[in-house]
């Protein structure tokens, strides 16, 4: 009989070990099993385990890489990962902890000891969750108390939008080439999402709240570029492999930043969505993207939509290293990447609304004066709110 609703995911390629682990834990926890790292990662989003017992030596991606991917997944930092492996050398254990394991148990294991450790980790997780909730409650009360005499909840929300918008511009203004990229990208994203909300496989998932959150979240997708050194972000020439690896980190940096902001915000659904988009908008549908290499529906839907909008705008814009590709040719390129870079359902939405996308593209031009004006406007609004 299950006495605890905690979910435990068992990952091992040896069926005998899976049988043993299941027998040990199924009476106390909800248990699911995976025979490989790939299978475990595919189950992560839906099963949302509280704890993962993870073998290291498995065919396909090994336990180290699986653990790394778990840590990079949404809320992956909150999952307790216990590595259970017959690898017993110090460097192997060091590597396990370096990729984010919470504990390491050497096979052959003593069942009693393993059970004790799992119980301990789940108790620890519960304690951390309670502490985090209390901190969050306290934190969310502070701004309301401080501003209760001056600002309503709506005004606070408005101030939040403006602050976040200004933050976005800080990132964008560091890259002189992007111009109105965010304006177009947000609009493309919205057109695609609205189309997907009407027909296709995702219409159940996309409601008004989703559309509203997406509208506010999508411009924050590259916010992590704040953390990339100018020498690399603004380098005119070709990037070295190392520099490219540094650039790729803007996804993780952005996600951490937004998760941190979301944890202290009173009503921040869009910030959580923004963190997800920041983290996963460079994933590819075929699994060859970064940072986690998620495949297909493992990639959160908002990130799949933004990925196409972002790429289409990059293709059709001028860069120092390339000319702008005409819309019709860009459309062919996007279609050719259906099922590879992009979700085929999102590509279908793109095809259906291509006319609207091109019309919008013609309306929004890259004009520095407009962007700078928008920045000045936001700064003045921020000042007004601060003095009201």
């Amino acid at each position, binding site marked *: 009989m299950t006495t605890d609703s905690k979910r435990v995911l068992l990952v091992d*390629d*040896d069926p*005998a*070990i899976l*049988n*043993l682990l299941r*027998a*040990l834990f199924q*009476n106390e926890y909800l248990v699911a099993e995976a025979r490989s790292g790939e299978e475990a990662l595919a189950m992560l989003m839906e099963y949302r385990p509280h704890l993962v017992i993870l073998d290291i*030596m498995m065919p396909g991606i090994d336990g180290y890489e699986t653990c790394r991917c778990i840590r990079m997944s949404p809320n992956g930092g909150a999952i307790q990962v216990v590595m259970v*492996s*017959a690898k017993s050398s110090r460097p192997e254990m060091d590597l396990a902890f370096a990729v984010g394991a919470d504990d390491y148990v050497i*096979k*052959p*294991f003593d*069942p009693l000891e393993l059970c004790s450790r799992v119980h301990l980790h789940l108790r620890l997780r519960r304690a951390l969750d309670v502490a985090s909730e209390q901190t969050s409650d306290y934190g969310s009360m502070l701004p309301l108390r401080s501003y209760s005499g001056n600002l309503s909840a709506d005004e606070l929300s408005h101030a939040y939008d403006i602050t976040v918008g200004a933050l976005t511009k800080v990132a964008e203004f560091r890259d002189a080439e992007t111009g109105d990229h965010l304006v177009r990208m947000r609009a493309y994203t919205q057109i695609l999402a609205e189309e997907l909300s009407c027909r296709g496989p995702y219409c159940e998932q996309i409601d008004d709240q989703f559309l509203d959150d997406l509208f506010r979240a999508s411009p924050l997708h590259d916010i992590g570029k704040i953390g990339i050194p100018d020498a690399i972000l603004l380098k005119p020439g070709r990037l070295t492999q190392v520099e490219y690896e540094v650039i790729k980190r803007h996804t993780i940096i952005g996600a951490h930043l937004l998760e941190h902001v979301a944890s202290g915000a009173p009503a921040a659904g869009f910030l959580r969505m923004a963190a997800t988009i920041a983290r996963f908008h460079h994933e590819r549908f075929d699994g060859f993207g970064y940072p986690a290499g998620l495949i297909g529906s493992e990639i959160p839907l908002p990130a799949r939509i933004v990925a196409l909008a972002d790429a289409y705008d990059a293709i059709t814009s001028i860069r120092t290293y390339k000319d702008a590709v005409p819309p019709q040719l860009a459309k062919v390129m996007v279609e050719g990447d259906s099922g590879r870079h992009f979700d085929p359902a999102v590509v279908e939405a793109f095809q259906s609304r291509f006319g609207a996308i091109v019309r919008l593209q013609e309306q929004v031009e890259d004009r520095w004066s407009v962007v700078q004006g928008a920045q000045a406007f936001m700064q003045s609004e921020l000042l007004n709110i601060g003095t009201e």
Partner: protein
Amino acid sequence: MTVMNPIYSTMADDPILHEIVEMFISELPDRIDTLLGQTRASDWEGACRTAHQLKGALGSHGFDQLTPAAMNLERALKHKEPLAQMQVALEELVGLCRRVQPGCSPAECS
């Protein structure tokens, strides 16, 4: 057939795990066949993987006394030690696995 000096699991009388141990024992001959097949085919990588699995699985099912033999074989395969040494390690592990019996030791059951 009577097995000389049978080896029993230390978990054979565990109320929850004894069925799992019995299942493991029933599948052990298949694992040994796999290991022998891999070494006959000079599939050292595959044999090393099987030895590694046995190292973890045997001890975790209450056969701790077999763990060193599995460890020796894994090491010999991993470091590509001379064939004769691999053969000794293989025979030792296979010999021990064939002594594994279901149930618990008469001394402990009585």
